[in-house]
Every structure is written in structure tokens, then in C-alpha cells.
């Protein structure tokens, strides 16, 4: 049995006092040594995203992570002495605004060397423009068109920190295929939100790859709007068509609603709910508290999905320890302690390293431009705070392939392992007076590269 990583998410957060700030970075962060002193200069993290629109719930923790991390690194020397600053612009989920904000950034007097973006739709819109303007971008989303262009064969200038969504469903199918004892005769029903993000994982390539792994993917995907009150009919459609696994490429209320509906229909034991890396998130675990399954635990208990980085519970990672201390010191609520907060930290650490290398290479901050930065990104092999492995293989890929499959469970009352029933589970009071079960993520596999399933990718079965 694999070692189960466990920790008390909230208790530790409460227990750790704000620690005294010594002015150097902890030893485990090994940035490239600076050959040039940049004291007095500023490195700006340019970011635009849907801060106020319907994806705001995931952008807010990202912003919190970015600002906490920037403050932390600035107090410890910044980038070779230069101060980190941030410039956030709000698109409200409107692509016209995305275009306008991008125009603003790309025509700045001092053109940005690097832009952080967020939504799959934004990446798809800007993919060719960023390549044309020679501005690299960092993203934590993975639709094929956003990273490799419409044909899947023209790599753009945007680099994702997680595997492509299509590759994620691929690694899920691989896992299911390899564990036939747990998943006999697997049939996947795809149920998700409509739109660029929600539909990104359902492609011809993923269907044929899954088939090659012995996993059938139904050809009738169901899409429900994030506003849906009830999706019983959609779920029953898929189950009637033979699905015993429901895969969703949605986040927050999406996976929670799918799992809740499965529990309502009394299908908890027959149907496995699975999802993209965003589905394995604190928000899903917390939203799950309003609908319990037959075992008395939240219906999302047992959700399987991709976990392409280390998680809050894996405290033997020093980076995780640091982020937890800082989240506690900055009084971030439990709902903020999620995937996006981690990524915000990882992003800032990446910035520090990228700029250190780039400045060493060209001699001054002014000489760093998009093309230099692209070279640095593609040739760097680094692990931001130990969260994931930043390595684009000299520019061969646009998405980091490292992935593992994990399961969402809830902590038991002793804090020693996953709870088996509602009575057994640990509950904590939240700031608003309600109680929550504590979601934990248990990796089921080690890190391994996700299959390459973009059109014409290496792992796409021949003849599809």
C-alpha cells in the first residue's frame, strides 16, 4: 500500500503562529545565483483574468497567492534586488475586454517580457497574437487550441503549468485501464460545462486513446450550464447509456453537482465520479458539505482526478510547509487555501528564477525581452517551491506533462486517515458558523508523464 499523505489542513493552519520573518529565503529554495545586481529596478507580474466574472471564485485565491508571494519575496531580496510588482487587469470574462487589456500590455512603452493569463478562452484568443508580438505567457490551463493552435501542431508562446486537459483524461483512462479490478468494464460518460474549458477534454483523440486502454467513452457528452439547478436527467441519460464513470471538466459547483446528483440517485456505489485537476480542489470539497452521500460523508468523497502538483496535505514537501505557514500568517480562510493559491506562489517563484537566469544571460534587466524569456523558459529545468517540475524539454512541449491520479477523501476524527463514514469524520467550524468536513487528496499513483493526446500527438492511437 502506498504511503498515504495526510495532515490536518485547518488545524495546522490555526496552530502555526505567524513566524518571525528572517530576511533570507529558506534553504530549500535554490534560485540561480545572481550575477547582476538589480537593486532599484522593478519586475512587474502582468496578469489579466476574469477577476469579477463567473470564474472569480478561482481567480480570487490566485490573486491572494500572487500578492502574498510577492510580498514574501520582496521582503527577501526580490529578484536579484529588484522589486516585484503586480499589475492585474479584470476582463470580467468578456473576450473583448481580454483583447483590449492585451493590447494595452503589448503596446506598453516597455513591452512585457512575460504575461500571466488564466482562462482557456483567453489563451485561445491570444495564442497567435502573442506569438506574433513575441510575448511569452504562463498559464494554468490546458486546451489544445490555446497552446498548440487550432491544428494542434503550431506551438504558440503560451506555456501551461499542468498537462493538457485532453492528456489529463488520457492519464485517467490509463489508470482505469490498468486497474481493471476496481473498474470492471469501464464506460465513461462525459458531463461538463459548455464552452472552451468544459468541452476541452472531449476530443476524437481522447476517445480513441481511452478505447485503446479498454475504456469506452460514450459519444453523447452532456453539457449543463453552471447555473443548472438540477441535472438528474443529464446524469440518468449517461447512466442509461451504460456509463459507470462520469468525467467532468469543470470546477467548484460543477463536480460537486455531478457527485451530489449521483448520490441522490443512489448510484454512489455503481458510478465513479472523476474530473480534471480543478475538480480536486478545496472548493469542491467545501461545496460538497451541503449534500451527503449514503455513507454520511459529502457526496464528493471518493472523487478521482488529476493532481499534477503537490498538495496542501503533503507537508513533507518544504514548499508546501512554507505556503501553509504564509497562508496562516496572512490569515487566508480555508476557502482560499486551494489550488489557485498554490499556483500563485509557484508562479511568483518561477518569475524570480526566470528573471535571475535571463538577466545572467543578457546582462541587464532592460536587455531581457520576450524572445530571451522564451529561450529561458524552454531550457530551464526547475521546480518552483517543489510544487511541480518546470521543464519544457527545450521547447518541445507547451504543457508540463507530469501528472498523477489522486482521490478526494475526507479526514477522520483522529486526523490519522480518511474517514469511512459521516460519524467517523472530523468536522471543523468555519468562520461563518457552519461546519465543514476536511477534504484531503490521496495520490493513487506516482508522477508520470501524461499521454500526449493533442492532434497528431505521440500517444494518439494510429488510424484515429
Amino acid at each position, binding site marked *: 500500500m502506498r504511503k498515504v499523505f495526510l495532515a490536518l489542513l485547518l488545524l495546522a493552519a490555526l496552530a502555526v503562529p505567524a513566524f518571525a520573518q528572517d530576511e533570507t529565503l529558506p534553504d530549500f529554495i535554490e534560485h540561480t545565483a545572481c550575477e547582476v545586481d538589480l537593486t532599484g529596478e522593478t519586475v512587474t507580474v502582468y496578469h489579466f483574468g476574469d*477577476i*469579477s466574472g463567473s470564474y*472569480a471564485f478561482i*481567480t*480570487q485565491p490566485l*490573486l*491572494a497567492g500572487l*500578492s502574498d508571494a510577492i510580498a514574501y519575496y520582496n521582503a527577501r531580496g526580490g529578484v536579484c534586488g529588484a522589486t516585484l510588482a503586480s499589475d*492585474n*487587469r*479584470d476582463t*470580467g*470574462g*468578456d*473576450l*473583448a*475586454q481580454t*483583447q*483590449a*487589456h492585451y*493590447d*494595452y500590455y503589448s*503596446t506598453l512603452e516597455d513591452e512585457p517580457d512575460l504575461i500571466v493569463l488564466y482562462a482557456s*478562452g483567453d489563451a*485561445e*484568443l491570444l*495564442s*497567435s*497574437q502573442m506569438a506574433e508580438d513575441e510575448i511569452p505567457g504562463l498559464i494554468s490551463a490546458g*486546451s*489544445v*487550441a490555446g497552446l498548440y*493552435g*487550432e491544428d494542434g501542431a503550431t506551438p504558440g508562446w503560451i506555456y501551461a503549468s499542468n498537462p493538457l486537459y485532453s492528456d489529463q483524461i488520457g492519464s485517467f483512462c490509463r489508470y482505469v485501464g490498468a486497474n481493471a479490478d476496481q473498474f470492471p468494464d469501464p464506460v465513461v460518460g462525459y458531463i461538463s460545462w*459548455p*464552452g*472552451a474549458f*468544459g*468541452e*476541452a477534454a472531449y476530443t476524437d483523440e481522447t476517445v480513441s486513446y481511452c478505447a485503446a486502454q479498454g475504456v469506452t467513452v460514450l459519444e453523447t457528452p452532456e453539457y449543463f450550464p453552471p447555473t443548472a439547478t438540477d441535472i438528474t436527467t443529464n446524469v440518468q441519460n449517461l447512466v442509461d447509456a451504460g456509463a459507470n464513470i462520469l468525467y467532468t471538466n469543470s470546477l467548484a459547483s460543477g463536480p460537486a453537482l455531478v457527485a451530489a446528483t449521483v448520490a441522490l440517485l443512489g448510484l454512489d456505489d455503481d458510478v465513479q465520479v472523476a474530473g480534471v485537476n480543478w475538480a480536486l480542489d478545496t472548493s469542491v470539497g467545501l461545496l460538497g458539505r451541503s449534500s451527503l452521500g449514503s455513507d454520511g460523508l459529502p457526496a464528493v468523497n471518493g472523487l478521482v482526478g488529476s493532481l499534477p502538483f503537490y498538495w496542501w496535505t503533503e507537508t513533507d514537501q518544504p514548499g508546501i510547509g512554507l505556503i501553509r505557514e504564509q497562508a496562516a500568517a496572512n490569515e487566508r480562510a480555508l476557502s*482560499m487555501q486551494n489550488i489557485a493559491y498554490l499556483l500563485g506562489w509557484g508562479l511568483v517563484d518561477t518569475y524570480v528564477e526566470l528573471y535571475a537566469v535571463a538577466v545572467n544571460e543578457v546582462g541587464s534587466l532592460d536587455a531581457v525581452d520576450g524572445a530571451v524569456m522564451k529561450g529561458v523558459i524552454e531550457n530551464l529545468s526547475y521546480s518552483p517551491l517543489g510544487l511541480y517540475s518546470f521543464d519544457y524539454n527545450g521547447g518541445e512541449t507547451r504543457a508540463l506533462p507530469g501528472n498523477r491520479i489522486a482521490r478526494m477523501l475526507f479526514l477522520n476524527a483522529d486526523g490519522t486517515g480518511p474517514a469511512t463514514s459521516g460519524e467517523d469524520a472530523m468536522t471543523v467550524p468555519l468562520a461563518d458558523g457552519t461546519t465543514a468536513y476536511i477534504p484531503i487528496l490521496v495520490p493513487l499513483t506516482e508522477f508520470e508523464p501524461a499521454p500526449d493526446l493533442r492532434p497528431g500527438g505521440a500517444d494518439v492511437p494510429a488510424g484515429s
Partner: protein
Amino acid sequence: MSANIRPSGVFDTSYAQDIALNRTRFDRLLANGLFVLLLLIPLLTLEGPFGLNILPQLWIGTIMRIAIFVIAVQGLNILVGYTGQISLGHAAFMAVGAYSSAIMARHLGMSFWLALPLSALFTGAVGLIFGLPSLRVKGFYLVMATLAAQFIIPWLLRYPLEPLTNGSRPLDVPAPTLFGLSFASTGAMYYIIIPLSVFLCLAARNITRTRVGRAFVSIRDNDLAAELLGINVFAYKLQAFFLSALYAGIAGCLMAFDTNNITLDSFLLDSSITMLAMLVIGGAGYPLGPLFGVAFVNLLTQNIIPALVVPVRDFVPRVLPFINTVNLYAALSPLLFGLALMVFLIVAPRGLAHRWEIFKIAWKIRPFSH
């Protein structure tokens, strides 16, 4: 209307003069001068042929975006402002224009110059279909027919037509070429979009001065009276729908060939609502309304709000320490946008163009107050 007021001593001596858009030599000079200035802008930026850094490069993209939306909102103006039929489906018609032109260019190998008029006509035809209910349905019920367009058209494009449109995934659009020259760069597209936008605005201005335009206005003001006067209300309503969709189609097509990449997410209901807002802010039923509205909303979202965000973000936590700064980040842009719109509506409920007309009259009859 202000059109009748001229500086004293200026009289019309011919019919041509009477119907001229620019009645005085000064007006004509001003209009032509502004147009030439507009065309000169790209030459004065850093990426222009002379590398002059007189005007910011940002202006090019902004002006082009404004020009495209002015075309779309001008179409909405014909339908809403002149004919009085509210539409909540304008973005869907833009989608039809964008996707039909992209499909013509990609699958039929048509050039941009052929795809533009064809896709515009096609969109006009689609507009006619959704205008059909106007035979029987009126007022807010007609909003429904256009709202239906806003849901039915994207559904068709997303699912049944997926092989052509790539569904939810983006669709690449080739850059226009002319005699072997590619219009791939932003600056080049400028010279397609701006003249077309000016031309279409003038065309709309002229349409509304003709028999058709007067029929539109009479339908807006009182459709029953119009019918009694012998105006074929249904036929004219259909014409308004057709023209409106035609404009939307052109705007959509330009958008597709400008960004070279389209997704359905650009043409959602939000976008339709925004365009309606732009029209009302600018002044529905005024020829300059769309320009004022689009420019103002653009100024608000791109300049005023981002400029306010930083000071407000730094200031508020000092005064109101209980406000969560992360929440403030998210709240600011909708909050400021909503407030600005509200103040604006209370001050100028008939739109900027109405204010502008009042101002023009006041200027022309100075020093007298009436």
C-alpha cells in the same frame, strides 16, 4: 431638429444644398479633415512606416475595435433607435457574420473581398428569419424573438455545425490579401476597417433620411398610425431587421479577419446587452449615437476604471479597514462601471448624442440663449 439651424446669413440656394449632409464649407472641411487625420494616425505611431513615436501604438487597436463596434451598434441603431424594435440578439448576428465569412474563406477558398459582402448578405437573410415574428409580435415580446436568436444561433454553430465551426474550439481565419499583399499586420487592417466604418455610418445616416428611414421612424413613433398612412409596417420592419443584421454581419466579418481567430464565447448574450447599453448611452436614434456610446464605454472600461482602480484600492483600506482587499480587487471594476453608468443615465438619459445636439444648437445660436 438641429439640422435646420445654420449660422445666420447662410441660405440654401439649391435643392442639392438643402439635402447636403454638410451644409457649410466649414462643416465639409471639418468632416474631411477629421477623416484624413483618422487615416494618418497609424503613420504617426512607433510601428508605422516612419517609426515616429508621436502617438501611442495602443491607439491603433483601440480605434479599430471602436470602429468595428460602431458598425455593429450602428446596425442596432437602425433597428432599435429608428424603428423602435428592441433587440437582444445582436451578438448572435455578429457571430453569423464572423463564422459565415470564416467558413467561406477557409472551406470555399473565397477571398476576404468576396466573403465580406456575401457573409453580410447571408447575415441579413438570417436577420430576416428572426424578424418574421415582428409580423405579429410587438414590444418586449419581440425582444423574445431576438433573445431566441441569441440562443438558437450559437447552439447551431456549436453543435450541429461543429465540423465547419470547430464548435467550442476557436476557428482560425486567414488574413485578407489584395494583389498578393497580405493585410496580416494590425496597421494594414486599419485601412480596411476605418473607411468601411465611416462609409457604413454615412450610409446609415443617409438611409434614415430617405423614404425608408422616415417609414422606420413613423413605425417607432406609432406603428398603428404608420399603418393607417399606408406604410407597409411589416415590410419595413423586415427591412430594418435585414439592415441591422447586415451591419452586424459586416462587423462580425471584420472582427474575424482582424483577430484572425474567433470563438463563440465572444458572441454571448452579455455582448448583446453591452451593445444595447452602448447604444442607449450614446443616444438611440441619433446618427452619432453609436460612435459616442462605443467610445465612451471603451474609455470607461479601458482608461477611466483602470486609472481609478489603483488609487481606490490603496485608499479604501485606509478609510474602511474592515473591507477585505482581495474582495476589493474583484469588486472594483463592476462597481465603478455600474456607478458611472447610473450617474450618466440620470444626467443624460437620452444619451450623449442628445447632449451633443443641444450643445451644437447652443453654439450655433450664440450669443442668444434661445
